[in-house]
């Protein structure tokens, strides 16, 4: 455990690889209707960094995230989480891997409605039958400003509070990597900014590896590094991206991208 902690809080200058995709292929459908959602995507996620993934609708960014997170299987190539090759794992092993080593923040419906905020935060740990590290959770709760909300149920929380609980839950087990899928998609801009600010802090101060899928250039600007996806492969990347730079890159990728970015991706 303590080794893991040291690893996660390693200084950002050390370039350790937390996860990588090597020539990943994912095909939906069969025959004539087959769609190559990922078509040779290769990507390394550095540990302790906040990485954003952008791309036009249908570029495969959600699929890539699902593959990296062990939520979905792939049809070709290799996905490594740390040293673990996910492509060789069965459903149950992937479930256990998610529980032990991965955290998630979805766009919405992040919380189990029947559990309180505190119980939702501890959920992956209690599912695994592990005792939560109370000190760590208290720290997370304090940073996220949830201390007076712990006994509330999700329906009694605002959207921003719900997403912050989701972030706390994702970080509670000190996972090797946290995946966030449009985490600010359902939030107003103030709540969204607060959440993004926290994700950046988690990477910079706590050394947490974070991968965020987004279509929002403002959100992507919070990341240390931004990769662009198009037609199922990585086509470009930016370090310390700023909004104008992001917009111009996107425009060069696909002129219609900003309009279609409003759509939800499959």
């Amino acid at each position, binding site marked *: 455990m303590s080794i893991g902690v040291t690893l996660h809080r390693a200084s950002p200058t050390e370039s350790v690889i937390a996860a990588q995709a090597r020539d990943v292929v994912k095909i939906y459908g069969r025959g004539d209707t087959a769609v190559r959602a990922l078509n040779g995507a290769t990507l390394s996620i550095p540990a302790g960094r906040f990485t954003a993934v952008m791309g036009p609708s249908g570029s495969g960014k959600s699929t890539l995230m699902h593959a990296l997170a062990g939520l979905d299987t792939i049809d070709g190539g290799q996905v490594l989480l740390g040293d673990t090759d996910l492509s060789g794992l069965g459903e149950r092993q992937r*479930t256990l891997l998610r529980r032990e080593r991965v955290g998630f923040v979805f766009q919405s419906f992040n919380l189990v409605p029947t559990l309180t905020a505190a119980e939702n935060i501890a*959920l992956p740990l209690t599912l695994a039958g592990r005792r939560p590290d109370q000190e760590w959770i208290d720290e997370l709760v304090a940073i996220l400003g949830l201390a007076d909300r712990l006994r509330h149920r999700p329906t009694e929380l605002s959207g921003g509070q719900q997403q912050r609980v989701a972030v706390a839950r994702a970080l509670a087990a000190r996972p090797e990597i946290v995946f966030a899928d449009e985490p600010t998609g359902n939030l107003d801009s103030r709540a969204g900014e607060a959440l993004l600010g926290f994700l950046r802090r988690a990477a910079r101060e706590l050394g947490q590896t974070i991968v965020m899928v987004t279509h929002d250039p403002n959100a992507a600007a919070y990341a240390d590094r931004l990769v662009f996806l198009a037609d199922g492969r990585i086509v470009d990347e930016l370090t310390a991206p700023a909004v104008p730079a992001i917009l111009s890159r996107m425009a060069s990728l696909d002129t219609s991208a900003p309009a279609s970015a409003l759509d939800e991706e499959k």
Partner: protein
Amino acid sequence: MWRLALRNALAHRARLALTLIAVILGVTFVTGSLVLTDTSQRLLDDQFRTASAGVDLVVRDAAAFDSAMGVEVERDPLPSVAVDRIGAVPGVAAARPVVRGSGLLRTDGKAIVPSGPSLLMSWEPAPIGAFTLRAGRPPAADDEVVIDAATAGGHHIDVGDTITIQAESTARLRVVGLAGFGGSPGLPDSTVGLVDLPTAQRLLGLGDGVTEVAVIAADGLDPQRLQDRVATALGTGYAVTTGRDIAASSAEAAKTQVGYLQLMLLALAAAALLVGAFLIANTFSIVITQRTRELAVLRAAGATGGQVLRSVLGEALLVGIAASIAGVGLGVAAAAGLRGLTGAFGITLPDGSLIVEPRTVIVALAIGIGVTVTSAIGPARRAASVAPVEAMRRSSAPAAGGRGRTVIGSLATVLGVAGLAAVIAVRPSAGMIAPVGAAALSVIVGLVLLGPAVAPALARFIGRPLDLAGVPGRLARESAARSPRRTSATALSLAVGLALISFMTVLATSVKASIAQSYKEVISADYVIESARNEMLGGLSHHVHHHVSELPEVAVASRLRYGHWKDGQATRALTAVDPVTLPRVASPHMVAGSLDALSGGGVILAESVARQRHLSVGDSLPMTFSRTGTQRLPIVGLVLDRDAHALSTDYLISLETFSKNYREHVDASVFVKIAPGVGAAVAKKAINGVLADHPTAQLRDQAAAVAGRTLMIDQVLGMVTALLTLTILIALMGITNTLALSIIERTREIGLLRAVGMTARQLRWMIRGEAVFITVLAIILGVGMGIAFAAGTVAALGSTIDAPLVLPVGRLLAVVAVAVVAGLLAGLLPARRAAKLDVLTAVAAT
């Protein structure tokens, strides 16, 4: 909107499948019950109509009533001169004497004991006789007999063989012919022996008396006019009845039993339908909750509330029609199975081709459709009240019950519980069954109304042990607590079934215990001889008593007889005892008067009966006997209720008084005290030696005697439990259905849980846990209600049965265990389905 209803029904056919099955099962049950009892009744009608088809009038000894509790009374024989007097009446074409009684057939030394009667009759050719020869010739001499072809076939008897007939006297007779009855080779569940008139009179000990005179009217003469003429000619003391009326009243008597059965079957069918109604209401409300947004879009697009209401009811109507039609079809098939089931529990019904009355189809369809549509009214009204703005909301929180509903529910529950408690506390002396029934109904209705309001608290309280099962356990409990309406309806439907089963079990056990206890305390005989056949009046030949009392190994043999009498419109039973010998085999405790005084021709009443009727020793009780009409019997004593029950009825008369007022001469029981110094084995052997001639007679020790008396209770309990299992089955389908539907509703939640690391195994346990949890909730409510209702009933019966409340712990635990296992099974399918949900699609579901 109709097209929408049809589309919806088809689109949700998977969701509605179990609802469909529930309605089908209920309708099948109703149809099966009706078809079975109709068939039985029609067969009995046909049988008696055939029996008197060729006869215009029947002349018998007059009787105050024809039958009681489904048993036709026995009448005095007519003198033979009556035949000539009737024959002399103008317009009578023929008057023939008929003798009828019972005589057991034996072949190769073994008795043929049918489950019905062993008939012995004088042979009469058609049209008077209903039997027609199928082989051989009619009996012509005093050593000849014709038997029914069915019995002959079943026991390999042929023309030319010799058989024995055992009636008042016994004779060996040669079989000279085989007869059929109408189109069938015999009468159902019976044996028939047909001999010539003098032989019948001799075997039945009638001298030259005859049972009845069958009359055929001259051509063209209306039987009813002849009836008046014959009655006038004969004067009082004779009953002149048309053949058609005889057939009708005999059939009516025989049908009484079928009527009881029909009532019971329909009551059980009603229970099944009630449980089905819960399931239907539940399914519709869940489906509608899931469709809230769709409905709101409809409303926003301009559909009126009424249109939405009609579309939901239309959907229910479609389900109701489809299920009812299927149910009627299956019900006809199920009738045969039901007959087998009742047969297995000792209730034999005539066998024959099934009769489906138009009424059956109409009733079954009306009930099936009615129940379905009625159950859907609540959900439909909720659907109609969906506001168009809800189309814009993400999800709507399920509402608990309204306040009015909760208040009324609490009131009904409290009233019912208070009523039950009052009955239990007061232990009223008079029968108070009706208030207990009302209280029980009030509790059930109250709980149904109250359910949604109390379910969450109850679920969290009872579900506490689930915490031990970790997060899946907690989530299972919380998910049950979160949908209070759904949880309470699902649990209550199972609870109703379990309540009925535990009610029946506890009540039956208590009554049995009471019978055993009173028997043990009152009867001191070493043995009792009773007929193994379950006959209303006992059916033990009076020869048994005679032979047994003559044995040197026997100190005393005292017998009981049962008789029916009319108490105004009511039919009651009495017990005739020998006041001299009874005290040596039993110790009835007299509250007033004495047993000896019975010898003077009086009657002894059970204490509570006397109190209820404001009678005491010295008063007189008018009793109407079939043979002698209304007699005022002086009340000579009062006996403790329990002790009266040990002797089976509330009214005791002497055997002497009995023989004055009754023609029946079968014994119910012979109590035996063995002589001092004789070993049990020796006495048993001697008695069994005598009983060898009476194949239906059984020597029973105390335990066997009690078992014989409680056999009926066991049979009814067995059958009712078997049929209530259907109710439980429907309730379990309700659990499966509810869970399956709630999984659809919780797809995203399940996706989330899986994403953050809940294993498929944990998920399966969560769903199964919820199923078991609902079952446990139902068990607590159901078994609790069942015990409480039984306690109330036992208290209400009070002194009538004087039963202590006996909890059959073993049996109740078995019910609980079966229910839990069934609950687990009910959760299997939904659990598997939930575990198979693809994580990604579940997460992405909207």
